[in-house]
C-alpha cells in the first residue's frame, strides 16, 4: 500500500508541474505586457480581450491564426526534436530559409507540365538540402565535439547571406523587381483551405508532422533512446545507445522538418522565395518548443498561441494604435521565463531530494 502511494504522488505532482510549467512563462509575459500597457495608459484587459477576439473571434480570424501558426508547427518540432536530446540546435531558422529557397527553385524551374508532382518534388528537395545543412553541425558535434550552438548560429547567417545573394542575383525575378524569385507554377502552389484567408494545405502537413512526432517520441525505440540521451548521456552510453548516432539522427530529422516548413511557407504562403522570407520563425519555434516542453500537444498549442499573437498583433495595431512590438515583448519574455522555469523545477527537485 505504502509503495503504491509513493508511486502515485510523484505522478500527480509531475502533472501539476507540467501544467504550471506550460502556463507560467506565458503568465509572466502577460504580466510584463500588462505593465507596458498600463504605462501607456491602456487597459490591458481590454487589449487582451480585443486580441483574443481578433485571433479566435470568427472563422476568418481563426483561419488567420492557424495560417500564422503553420510555420511555427514545423520550426517548433524541428527545435524540440533536438532539444529533447540535449542538442542545442539554434539553426532551424537557417535550415527553414534554405528549404524555402530550394522548394521555390523546384517550383519555378521545372516544367509546369509536371503539375502536382512538383509539390512532393519540392518538399523532398527542400527536406534533403536542409537535412544536409544541419547534418554538418551534427557531425561536427558528434565526432569532434564542436559546440553546436555557435556552429548552427553561424550557419544561420551563412544561410541568410547565400539566399540573399541568390534572390538578388542569379534567381532574381525579371518582372517583379527587387529581392524576390519568380512565382512558382500554379500547379506547385499548395491549396488554400478557406479561400479568403491564406490558410493553406501546409497547415495539414504541419499537423500530420506533429502527430508523427508525438508517436515517434512515445511509441518508438529511437524516440525513446533519443530522449534518454537528453536525460543522461552517461546512462545512455552505458546501456548501449550510440550518442554520436543519436546526435546526427536528431539533427538530420530537424533539418528534414525545417526544410519541409520552408517548402510549406514558400509554396503555400508566398508562392515564391523573397528576401526576409522568415521573420524569425526559427526563433519563435524555439519559444514554442520550450513552452510546449517538447511535447507534441504542447507544441501544437504553443504554435497556435504564437500564431494568434502574430495575427492579432497586426490588427490590434490597426484598431487601437498599440504598437505591434507588444508581440515581440511577449515572445521574448516567454523565451526567457520558459528556461527560468526549468531552473526553478530543478531547484525544487534538489531541495526535495536532499
Amino acid at each position, binding site marked *: 500500500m505504502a509503495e503504491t502511494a509513493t508511486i502515485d504522488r510523484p505522478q500527480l505532482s509531475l502533472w501539476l508541474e507540467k501544467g504550471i510549467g506550460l502556463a507560467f512563462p506565458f503568465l509572466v509575459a502577460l504580466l510584463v505586457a500588462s505593465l507596458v500597457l498600463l504605462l501607456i495608459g491602456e487597459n490591458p484587459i481590454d487589449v487582451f480581450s480585443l486580441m483574443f477576439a481578433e485571433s479566435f473571434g470568427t472563422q476568418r480570424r481563426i483561419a488567420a491564426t492557424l495560417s500564422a501558426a503553420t510555420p511555427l508547427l514545423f520550426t517548433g518540432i524541428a527545435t524540440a526534436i533536438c532539444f529533447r536530446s540535449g542538442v542545442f540546435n539554434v539553426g532551424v531558422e537557417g535550415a527553414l530559409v534554405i528549404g524555402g529557397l530550394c522548394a521555390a527553385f523546384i517550383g519555378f524551374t521545372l516544367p509546369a507540365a509536371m503539375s502536382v508532382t512538383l509539390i512532393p518534388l519540392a518538399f523532398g528537395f527542400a527536406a534533403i538540402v536542409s537535412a544536409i545543412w544541419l547534418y554538418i553541425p551534427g557531425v561536427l558535434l558528434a565526432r569532434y565535439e564542436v559546440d553546436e550552438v*555557435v556552429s548552427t548560429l553561424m550557419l544561420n547567417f*551563412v544561410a541568410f547571406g547565400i539566399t540573399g545573394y541568390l534572390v538578388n542575383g542569379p534567381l532574381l525575378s525579371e518582372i517583379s523587381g527587387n529581392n524576390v524569385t519568380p512565382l512558382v507554377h500554379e500547379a506547385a502552389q499548395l491549396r488554400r483551405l478557406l479561400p479568403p484567408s491564406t490558410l493553406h494545405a501546409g497547415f495539414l502537413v504541419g499537423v500530420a508532422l506533429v502527430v508523427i512526432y508525438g508517436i515517434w517520441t512515445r511509441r518508438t525505440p529511437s524516440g525513446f533512446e533519443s530522449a534518454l540521451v537528453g536525460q543522461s548521456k552517461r546512462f545512455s552510453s552505458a546501456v548501449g545507445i550510440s550518442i554520436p548516432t543519436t546526435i546526427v539522427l536528431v539533427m538530420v530529422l530537424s533539418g528534414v522538418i525545417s526544410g519541409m516548413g520552408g517548402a510549406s511557407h514558400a509554396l503555400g504562403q508566398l508562392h515564391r522565395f523573397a528576401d526576409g522570407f522568415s521573420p524569425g520563425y526559427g526563433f519563435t519555434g524555439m519559444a514554442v518548443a520550450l513552452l510546449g516542453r517538447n511535447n507534441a500537444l504542447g507544441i501544437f498549442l504553443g504554435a497556435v498561441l504564437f500564431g494568434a499573437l502574430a495575427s492579432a498583433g497586426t490588427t490590434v495595431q490597426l484598431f487601437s494604435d498599440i504598437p505591434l512590438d507588444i508581440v515581440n515583448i511577449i515572445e521574448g519574455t516567454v523565451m526567457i521565463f520558459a528556461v527560468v522555469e526549468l531552473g526553478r523545477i530543478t531547484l525544487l527537485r534538489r531541495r526535495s531530494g536532499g
Partner: protein
Amino acid sequence: MIVDQIIAASLTLTTPILLAAMGGLVNRQGGIVNIALDAKMLAGAFVAVIVSSATDGWFIAVLAAAIAGALIGYLYSLVITRANANMIVAGLGLNVLVAGMIGFVLNWVYDSSGTLRLPDVQRLPKFLPEFMYDIPVVGLALSELEPLTVFAWITVLVLPFLLANTRIGLWIRATGNAPQVARAMGISGRNVQDFSTAFAGFFSGLGGAHLALASIGLFNEGLTAGRGFIALAAFYFGRDRPIATALVCLLFGFLDATQIRMQTAGLPPKLIGTIPYLMVLVALCIAGWRNHRRKAVSS
C-alpha cells in the same frame, strides 16, 4: 586616396565590433557565452541618441549608453546565475525582448517606425589637431578619430594585463575555467559572473553608442545589423585573447569597409558578409579536429 579611405573606414567600422567583443570575451572567460550582445548594442545606441539630444553632451550620452547596456547585462546575468536559466535561450529571448521594447517606445513615444531622428544630437568629437590631417595615408583616419575608438584600442592593450595580473581578472578566469577551484578559494562564482556580464553589457553599450554617434547621429532599428553576433564570432575566432580578437575585429571591419568596393569588382556583398561566420566555422572545426586527434593520441 583609396587606401586612405579604406583605412579610415575600416578603423571606424571596427570600433563597435571591437568594443562588444572585448566585453564578450571577458564574459566568456567568466564562463558565460553572451549571445545577447546585439540587444545591448541596440539599447546603447537608442539611449545614446536620446541622451545626446536631451543633454547636448556626447560624454553623458556615451556614459548613459554604457550604463544602460550594463544594467541589461546585469539583469540577464541574474536570470542565468540566480534562476538557472539556460544562457543561450535566455540570450536569444533577450534579443527579441529588447528589440520589442525599443520598437514599442519608438512607436509610442516618438511616433515613428524604425528610425529615430532627434534635433541637436551631439556626435562624437574629432579631437586631433588639424595639421595632422595632412599626414599621408593615415591623415584621413586621424581626422576621423574620436575618443571611443581610442578608448577601444587602449582597452585592447590593457585588458591582457587586467586579466592576468589583477585580482578580479584572476577571479573571472577562475570562475570560467575552473569553477571548482574558484569555489574552493571562496570566490562567489555568481557574483563574478554577474560582474563580467555587466562588464560585457557596458562595453556593448559603448559599441552601440559608437554606431549611433560616430557619424550618422540617429537611431535605426536595424542599426546593429547583427554586429553583436559578429563580435561573438570575433572572440570565438580569437579564442578569448584580447589582442588576437582585436586583430580579428580589424579584419571584419576591413571586410565591412571594402564590401561596397568589392561589389563594383563583381563580388556580391551578401556573400562577402558571410565570411566572418564561415571563418568561425572553420576555426571551430580546426579546434575540434585538434582536440580529437590529441585525445586519439593520448588514449
